[in-house]
């Protein structure tokens, strides 16, 4: 590892000041000349046939410019993969969940649009609802999705290694069932879209999207147009956490209404609409059976998982594979048998949330690991060290781990939380829980999958960097500017993030799975090297040396080891523009072609590079009388390779953990027996506040990933994967009760305590 000037430094975020001063323009802030305002009419029923929608009265209201329903779209379904195309822009024959958009209006102002919604008459024929996994799997269950003949939406089944032998060799076997609730996603900025149509009919969409490529592809398919007929420009995005990948009725309706009226149309949702009717995390039922030797070594794992994901598959086909695949990381598991199913239901559609379904699988596996550790009398830190995956490891299902700092992560977390001391004495009601996790740095999915970056070197020596990832608040623009500055020997402030625009940017396939720093970061380095090579030719000529001899540092280009023999960076730029007439563009792309496109149904293949590792220790206190859990301190031993921006990395790690503290303890989207959401306001849906968040400490474990940019790995999602079990295990350590059913509410704790004391 060399000494870096910009990489590894906690430089100020590129977007920090503009955001905290309220000057950043998000989709809802955008205004276009002649713009109309759109609103969406939502279904009060969770499952019903649409018999008729009468929009005539709404259309007749003065100020209303257009009213649309699902029938205004071509009726072409879209989905993540060719075999999972099960969604329409807006429903045509039936509604699938409470709050689903059934019609949309564009009017001269928002009040008129709202008034028009009340004039739309929808005739429904109510259908029985499917709400739970049990409902969905009943032999006579009503079918949820009109494109599927079964409520089993997707499945993933695999066996790797000799599972029978593994259980035979085990000294101790334990089987447990775990469940997890529906949670919403919790980004700050609500969904919003502004659509405009130019004189040639080309669409311009500016919306709050996490993965503009996914939105672009799916929308063009469902609108039956070539993708060149649509342009996407991304404004500032206020968080996404996987809740803004795909196009929603908001985006489709804005486009369709703009096409019909010929005027720009903006739709901005209220948050209650999002809490009721947009992406959530799947509800889970899972059964795990683990075999271990007396010394704590795991010999085999058998797992079943059923996810209830609402009326669409979405990314669920990947989720159900991901759950099983990452049961074998970050511990050495010699054999695994896995059976996963995703089922349709009439609850809000699921995508996923930060950490994807690894969050759920690590909760189950690290909970049961803690349970067998107690059974065998092995220290929870010890059992994790015994099983921790080392570097140069290949999991039984074929996932290759190049570099693992997990052992050091575990030791650092245990030290910093004061584990050894706590075993001597600790206050009553206090406990410490551990969990480890791993997350890959961006899996390869089918289709377009590379990342690319374009650098434009301006005459004044500054560089404009546009990339195919998306800045959604995670800090992508900042880390790429740091990387480009490092390669070009420029100060960080000389690199300016450009606009994310499909006309000039080649979008990444999506912004998910800890992918951006790793993939787009590598592309940034290559783009900067491309630019550097061009400048080196210019400077070499000036200096009469070989371009290969040149070094770039402190805005100078000079012969290696001889800083006197060189020219200013700016002079080289001017020579190129003014004497050679040569524009300076750096192009770079990166694509891991040496990893596999995994078959999600059979789980075969090496999914990704750059597995990041984390060991999380959480100290907490449980009030035995009220059941209330107070998180006191969270320590993360975190191996993200080489941190590019340590402060932002800490923000990601701590943020992921705080986010999942809500999943562990507070959050649950509740439904009544007819599938109507009960708590779709921020008052009643309990996300944690800063007052619910413990003191966090991140212990960076520096490793060097052979494929990562500057040795970095992806980051930000591993801590969300390690937090649920750390909290559940901490509660067990504090009061000796094991809650396997999330969220761990005070009432569940009191009930469990009562049962324990009754015994």
């Amino acid at each position: 590892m060399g000494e870096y000037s910009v990489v590894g430094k906690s430089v100020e975020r590129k977007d920090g000041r503009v955001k905290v001063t309220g000057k950043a323009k998000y989709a809802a802030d955008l205004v276009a000349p002649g713009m109309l305002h759109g609103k969406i009419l939502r279904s009060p029923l969770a499952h019903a046939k649409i018999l008729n929608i009468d929009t005539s009265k709404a259309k007749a209201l003065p100020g209303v410019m257009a009213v649309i329903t699902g029938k205004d779209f071509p009726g072409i379904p879209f989905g993540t993969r060719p075999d999972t195309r099960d969604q329409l822009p807006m429903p045509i024959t039936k509604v699938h969940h409470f709050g689903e958009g059934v019609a949309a209006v564009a009017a001269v102002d928002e009040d008129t649009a709202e008034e028009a919604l009340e004039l739309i008459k929808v005739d429904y024929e109510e259908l029985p609802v499917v709400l739970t996994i049990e409902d969905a799997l009943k032999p006579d269950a009503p079918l949820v999705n009109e494109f599927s003949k079964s409520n089993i939406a997707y499945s993933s089944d695999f066996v790797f290694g000799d599972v029978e032998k593994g259980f035979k060799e085990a000294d101790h076997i334990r089987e447990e069932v775990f469940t997890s609730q529906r949670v919403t996603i919790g980004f700050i900025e609500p969904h919003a879209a502004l659509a405009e149509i130019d004189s040639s009919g080309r669409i311009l969409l500016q919306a709050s999207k996490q993965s503009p490529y996914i939105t672009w592809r799916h929308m063009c398919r469902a609108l039956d147009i070539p993708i060149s007929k649509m342009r996407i420009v991304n404004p500032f995005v206020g968080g996404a956490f996987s809740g803004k990948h795909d196009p929603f009725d908001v985006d489709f309706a804005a486009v369709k209404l703009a096409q019909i009226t010929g005027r720009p149309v903006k739709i901005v949702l209220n948050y209650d609409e999002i809490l009721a009717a947009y992406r959530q995390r799947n509800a889970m039922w899972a059964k795990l059976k683990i075999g271990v030797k007396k010394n704590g070594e795991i010999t085999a794992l058998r797992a079943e998982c059923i996810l209830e994901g609402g009326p669409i598959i979405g990314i669920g086909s990947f989720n159900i594979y991901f759950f099983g695949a990452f049961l074998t990381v970050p511990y050495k598991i010699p054999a695994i048998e896995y059976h996963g199913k995703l089922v349709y239901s009439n609850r809000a559609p699921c995508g996923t949330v930060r950490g994807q379904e690894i969050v759920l699988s690590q909760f189950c596996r690290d909970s049961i690991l803690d349970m067998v550790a107690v059974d065998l009398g092995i220290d929870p830190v010890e059992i994790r060290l015994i099983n921790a995956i080392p570097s140069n490891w290949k999991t039984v299902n074929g996932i290759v781990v190049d570099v693992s700092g997990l052992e050091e992560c575990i030791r650092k977390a245990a030290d910093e939380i004061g584990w050894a001391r706590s075993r001597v004495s600790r206050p009553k009601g206090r406990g410490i829980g551990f969990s480890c996790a791993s997350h890959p740095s961006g899996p390869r999915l089918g289709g377009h999958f590379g990342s690319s970056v374009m650098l434009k070197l301006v005459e004044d020596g500054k560089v404009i960097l546009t990339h195919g990832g998306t800045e959604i608040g995670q800090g992508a623009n900042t880390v790429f500017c740091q990387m480009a500055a490092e390669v070009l020997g420029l100060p960080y402030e000389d690199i300016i993030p450009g606009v994310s625009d499909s006309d000039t940017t080649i979008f990444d396939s999506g912004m998910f799975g800890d992918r951006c720093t790793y993939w787009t970061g590598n592309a940034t380095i290559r783009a900067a090297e491309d630019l550097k090579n061009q400048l080196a030719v210019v400077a070499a000529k000036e200096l009469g040396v070989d371009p290969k001899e040149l070094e770039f540092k402190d805005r100078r280009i000079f012969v290696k080891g001889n800083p006197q023999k060189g020219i200013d960076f700016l002079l080289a730029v001017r020579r190129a523009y003014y004497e050679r007439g040569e524009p300076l563009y750096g192009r770079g792309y990166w694509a891991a072609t040496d990893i596999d496109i995994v078959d999600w149904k059979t789980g075969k293949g090496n999914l990704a590079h750059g597995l990041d590792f984390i060991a999380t220790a959480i100290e907490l206190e449980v009030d035995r009388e009220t059941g209330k859990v107070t998180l006191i301190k969270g320590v993360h031993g975190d191996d993200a390779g080489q941190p590019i921006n340590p402060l932002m990395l800490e923000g990601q790690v701590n943020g992921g953990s705080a986010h999942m503290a809500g999943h562990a303890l507070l959050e649950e989207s509740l439904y009544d027996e007819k599938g109507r959401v009960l708590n779709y306001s921020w008052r009643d849906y309990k996300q944690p506040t800063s007052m619910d968040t413990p003191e966090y400490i991140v212990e960076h474990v520096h490793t060097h990933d052979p494929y990562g940019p500057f040795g970095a790995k992806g980051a930000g999602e591993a801590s969300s994967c390690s937090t649920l079990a750390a909290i559940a295990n901490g509660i067990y350590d504090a009061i000796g009760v094991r809650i396997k059913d999330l969220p761990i509410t005070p009432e569940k704790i009191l009930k469990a305590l009562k049962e324990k004391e009754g015994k």
Partner: protein
Amino acid sequence: MFIKRLPQFEYHYPKSLPELFSLMAKYGDKAKLLAGGTDLLVSMKKREISPDHLINLKEIPELKGISFNEREGLRIGALTTIDEIEQSEIVKNRYQILWEAVSVMASPQIRTLGTIGGNLASAIPSADTAPPLIALGASLTIKGISSERKCLVEEFFKGPGESVLKTDEILTEIRIPVPPERSAGTYLKMMRRNALDLAIVGVATFLKLDRDKKICEDVKIVLGAVAPTPIRAIRAEKLLIGKELNEAIADEAGRIASEESKPISDVRASKEYRKTLVHVLTRRGLIKVNSMIRERS
């Protein structure tokens, strides 16, 4: 079903009480009074109510401010914001029970909007200011166009969203007597999260001890969010009067208070859990207050 934009209404902003009363007389039940608006505007956006007129009270000087003297005690204008009460030194030093309640309400931002009068007049069962005010023996001044009456906070509530206020009356001020020597109170609120949340249960406990700081001379236990209105746990209070407080008797008082509560189950908590909390919080409040008085020199 989903939140909408505010419906149309005519907006009035009287600068004095006479001006206010004439507007109220003119528009009657077609008008709603706007204080902080933290409940009202949300109800309007949900179309639970759509008044034709909104009368903003915030520009009437008589309705604002906090004042104190040793004879009459504390006066808080009904339009005083929760934040102003939280920032008041006199409230913090002399009426800690009320200060504890306002400092755990909603969020700092909402506290700068919400008013104490609005919190009371909305009459929601979980209103945080009600239990401490009842425990302190506070009274309200209620004025009409040509009337003025006093009402104990304890007698103000009639049911969820209902109070003794008539449509032609307004709540103008809250008066709280000077707390007696050797007395103290505390407000314990259980929420699902530590901020920005409604009470699952709120318990105000108030004690006055005898000269030797041993025997309970006066006891108030007031429960929020466990009945259609805030209620006093009278039987639990009676148990303690004339007795010396200890763990056992405090626990018994908690048990009785729990019996006296009449909570419901909803999305926030079950009835049984609320009853458990009344028991625990009452005991903890009593023990805490008792030692607060004893430890005070």
